[in-house]
């Protein structure tokens, strides 16, 4: 079966910074891939290229059979790909319920009642059914991030991208978010996750990808990645994050 995400030799420059230097990566359906690597190694950039929040300069990305080129294709792909950000990015002028229903309405043309049913179901699923009428600012960080996940899920994406979803959270809230993500992984969602939560990587990832200086240096199953890293860089990186 064809991989649902195909990334071939993608290059990305920011002025003189080479953020991605020929990255290739395939993700198959229902696979969970965790990307790790030092700061500035291009993890976010790679993730953001997958739904074209960032344009790449060379190479090719095909998502669910759709090549990311024309504006039309980009919007089609964005409908299939949900994204969760480090800083939640909930719409602060809308209630939790409206955060979940707006795009269903505007993008998917779902009638209000149906959109609200979807939203309430998802709020139950992420464990905050009683916050539908709250505003984002009235929620804790962990609750906000769970709303953000529900908001992305409301579009019925085939793929979910997570960019350090727990690194802006207080330690006691990390688990509640990771639990939601782990459940999602077990349900068979295709996920690409940038995260240094090694517990999550062990529990949910099929593959771990190590990036450094805009390249994929190493990829391995979680087991091999931790017990038997190949590159010196990987070892150095692991020694740093595992000591933290």
């Amino acid at each position: 079966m064809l991989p649902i995400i195909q990334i071939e030799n993608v290059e990305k420059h920011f002025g003189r910074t080479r953020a991605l230097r020929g990255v290739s990566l395939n993700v198959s359906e229902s696979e969970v891939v965790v990307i790790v690597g030092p700061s500035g190694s291009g993890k976010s950039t790679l993730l953001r290229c997958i739904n074209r929040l960032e344009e790449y300069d060379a190479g090719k990305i095909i998502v669910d059979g759709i090549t990311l080129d024309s504006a039309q294709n980009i919007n089609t792909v964005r409908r299939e790909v949900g994204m969760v950000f480090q800083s939640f990015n909930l719409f602060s002028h809308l209630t939790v319920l409206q955060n979940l229903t707006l795009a269903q309405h505007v993008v998917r043309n779902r009638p209000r009642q149906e959109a609200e049913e979807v939203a309430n179901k998802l709020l139950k699923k992420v464990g905050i059914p009683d916050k539908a009428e709250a505003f984002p600012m009235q929620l804790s960080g962990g609750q906000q991030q769970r709303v953000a996940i529900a908001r992305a899920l409301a579009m019925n994406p085939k793929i979910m991208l997570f960019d350090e979803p727990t690194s802006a959270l207080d330690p006691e809230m990390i688990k509640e978010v990771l639990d939601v993500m782990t459940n999602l992984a077990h349900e068979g969602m295709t996920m690409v996750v940038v995260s240094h939560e090694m517990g999550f990587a062990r529990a949910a990832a099929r593959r771990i990808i190590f990036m450094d200086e805009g390249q994929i240096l190493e990829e391995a199953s979680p087991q091999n990645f931790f017990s038997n890293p190949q590159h010196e860089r990987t070892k150095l990186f692991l020694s740093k994050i595992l000591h933290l």
Partner: protein
Amino acid sequence: METKPPLVAEEERKLALIPGAEPSTYMDPWWWLVILAVALALVLIFTQPDYQSIFHFILPGIKITASVTFASYFLMLIVGMIGALGRLSKNFIFHGLSSLYVEIVRGIPLLVQLIIWYYVVPSVIQKIGNDTGIGFLMNYRANPLIMAVVGLTFCYGAYMSEIFRAGIQSIPKGQMEAARSLGMSYFQAMRHIILPQAIRVVLPPVGNEFVSLLKDSSLVSVVAVADMTRRGQEYMATHFNPIPVWLFVALMYLILTLFSSRLVSWLEKRTRFER
């Protein structure tokens, strides 16, 4: 011991969680100043015959001032919005044109701009008419009122577009990215996500522009518009009594500006509650 009814306490607790929202039911004390100014005007009109005749003479001017102000304000909101989108656009031409517009307009005094619209633009049009032989252009006569509204709109639109631009830029980039990642188009994201948030940010400066415009509209008296200021000048020219005329004109402006700035801050409070 003081205990609040549970419902009120609950409402207050909810509000306390929304930054900037506080329960306030008391009347803004500045309204008293508006009332005082209106009362003073009424007393003058009804007890002093010369103020009464000044009032009757100036009344059409008040209407003109109000219409010029409202018309220009409405138009400049549109011009400002287009200008702001231009300044934020990645399109080279759209961006360049709106930047040029803003920079040029901000460098020329409003009075000079009004004079240009009233005296220079029509003669240029007539000249073009003469050169090309198009009769319709040759006989072009400027309508003072229209030129005044165009001039005010053109000038204030530039300032307005800077206010809108700053307001839009004050909304974190992540809001747009989140909207786009959900599949919304740029314009859907602007309309549903960015602008509703930006409006709250820009409401105070945009409201203050109304008050400034109201005062600056007095400049149109120079270009043949019979606004409040011009009517005052005309009255003074025939009656030679500067003190009551200008006292009264100033009082009228004061009432209008005090009233509108109260209205602005009332609106501001309301949008903070309306969530």
